[in-house]
């Protein structure tokens, strides 16, 4: 019966930030869905109640257990309260997925504004810190935890669309991942970063003409974009009990685009990260 299949998350509670929008959203709602399908109860966070509820409605329609927890995780008080409320509602927290992110608009380094820099830091670095701190305080006495930080392939390469604030903060998130990992590994808590490359989300399908999507896919050795479900599957695996010895890692999920040499001028109109 239960417990014999790989990656069974029954009995676990997950919090996924930036998971709103349901089938109109990005990777976040798909991650929430996959965690729920694997058996976890899922706390769905996004900045507004409407956006978070959109995902929760779809999950409940599918018979899955989920609840909305709107909050701006870049605000330390809201981040602390978010974790508190999730634990209050569900009695525990096992899995934290830091998915919420801010994409700076891609100005050249000398033209990036203070606000773009600070907002990128606040959402991509400070928020995961606040949430991880709160989560670890709860997880440590229980001797179990899974923290998955959604970074990006530009953390180890470059970004044609989002510039210096994105690359610096996404790589900084990997630094936090490594350091927190060594602090809590002995307590059964793993902390990992995943680095998605070109992933076709519903938002992208709507926003990008087919020629652009095809042009980008051609830059990837796999000759295709990845799907949000593939990214979610990696999250489910890392969240599972079986993945207890993987920690402090940065795992690209990118069809090998990060191992192909770069250069060749890169064209912004064909960029994806």
């Amino acid at each position, binding site marked *: 019966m239960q417990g014999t299949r790989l990656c069974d998350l029954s009995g676990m509670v997950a919090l996924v930030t930036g998971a709103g929008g349901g089938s109109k959203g990005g990777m976040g709602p798909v991650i929430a869905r996959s965690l729920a399908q694997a058996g976890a109860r899922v706390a769905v966070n996004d900045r507004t109640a409407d956006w978070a509820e959109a995902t929760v409605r779809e999950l409940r329609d599918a018979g899955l257990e989920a609840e909305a927890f709107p909050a701006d995780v870049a605000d330390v008080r809201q981040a602390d309260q978010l974790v508190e409320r999730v634990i209050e509602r569900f009695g525990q927290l096992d899995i934290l997925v830091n998915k919420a992110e801010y994409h700076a608009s891609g100005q050249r380094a*000398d033209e990036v504004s*203070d606000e773009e*820099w600070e907002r990128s830091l606040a959402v991509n670095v400070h928020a995961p810190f606040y949430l991880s701190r709160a989560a670890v305080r709860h997880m440590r006495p229980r001797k179990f935890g899974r923290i998955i930080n959604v970074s990006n392939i530009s953390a180890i*390469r470059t970004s044609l669309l989002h510039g*210096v604030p994105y690359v610096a903060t996404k790589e900084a998130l990997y630094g936090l991942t*490594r350091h927190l990992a*060594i602090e809590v590994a002995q307590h059964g808590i793993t902390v990992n970063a995943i680095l998605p490359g070109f992933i076709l989300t519903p938002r992208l399908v709507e926003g990008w003409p087919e020629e652009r999507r095809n042009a980008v896919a051609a830059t990837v050795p796999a000759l295709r974009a990845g799907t949000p479900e593939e990214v979610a599957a990696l999250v489910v695996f890392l969240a599972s009990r079986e993945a207890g010895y993987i920690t402090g890692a940065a795992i690209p999920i990118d069809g090998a685009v990060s191992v192909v040499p770069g250069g060749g001028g890169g064209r912004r109109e064909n960029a994806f990260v």
Partner: protein
Amino acid sequence: MGQQEERWLEGMVALVTGAGRGEDGGGGAGISRYLARQGAKVAVNDLTEEFTEATVDQIRSRGGEAWGIVGDVSDPADANRMVDAVVRHFGRIDILVNNAAIGGLIPAVERLPDEVWHRQVAVDLSGPFYMSRAALRYMIPQGFGRIVNIASLAAVRTGFVSGSTYTTAKTGLLGLTRQMAFEVAQFGITVNALMPTGIRNPRILRMRPEWLQAEGSLGPLDPEEEIGKLVAFLSRRDVTFISGAALPLDRGLGSALGNFEAYKQRSGKDAG
């Protein structure tokens, strides 16, 4: 009689952050001294005039040219003001060395206060961004520049004494370096990061003498003869081919398999 070798950085203007305290200083002061020896005019930045003047006096007493500029790199207005002032004083800016950083014994994430986190990320990561942005505004139109970011081996591992804030910021500094290098390569500007392990710092060694585990070829890095020399080399006009790089300065030891036990013992860290 041998030929007089041309100094590497003759006529160039450098700004080094966190470079104060002169003889009692650390990496920044050492780097400043070496750049001056190679012919650069060096603007020495630190948080107080007492600090900057110590290094400025030291350089001048050895026949070099230096000038102090006080400011906080983590404040974007200060960063802009400082770079503008250096250009006004020396006529241009060629080299920026983002060295200013704060480390220190930092508690585990679980016990880490907000203010400590924010302050360290601001100085160690935002500082280099704000300073580089300000310098690029001169380097791009002039079609030449050298930015050297002093990161740490923590950028690809974990901080030794310093905690998660340091590891986070120094790792982010590599991303800043790489993306910036990519964006400004076309303008004759290189951007590189150095990842030193322990740097000889007299003041810190007085506080924690037990950290000095060895001398000589296994000892801490010499800020002037070792780190300074590499910064000066990367800043040469003819060294255009290294950019976006992250260079470990660890005497070949940093990539050895980790030892958590030794790490905790030696660093005295609150690591769990």
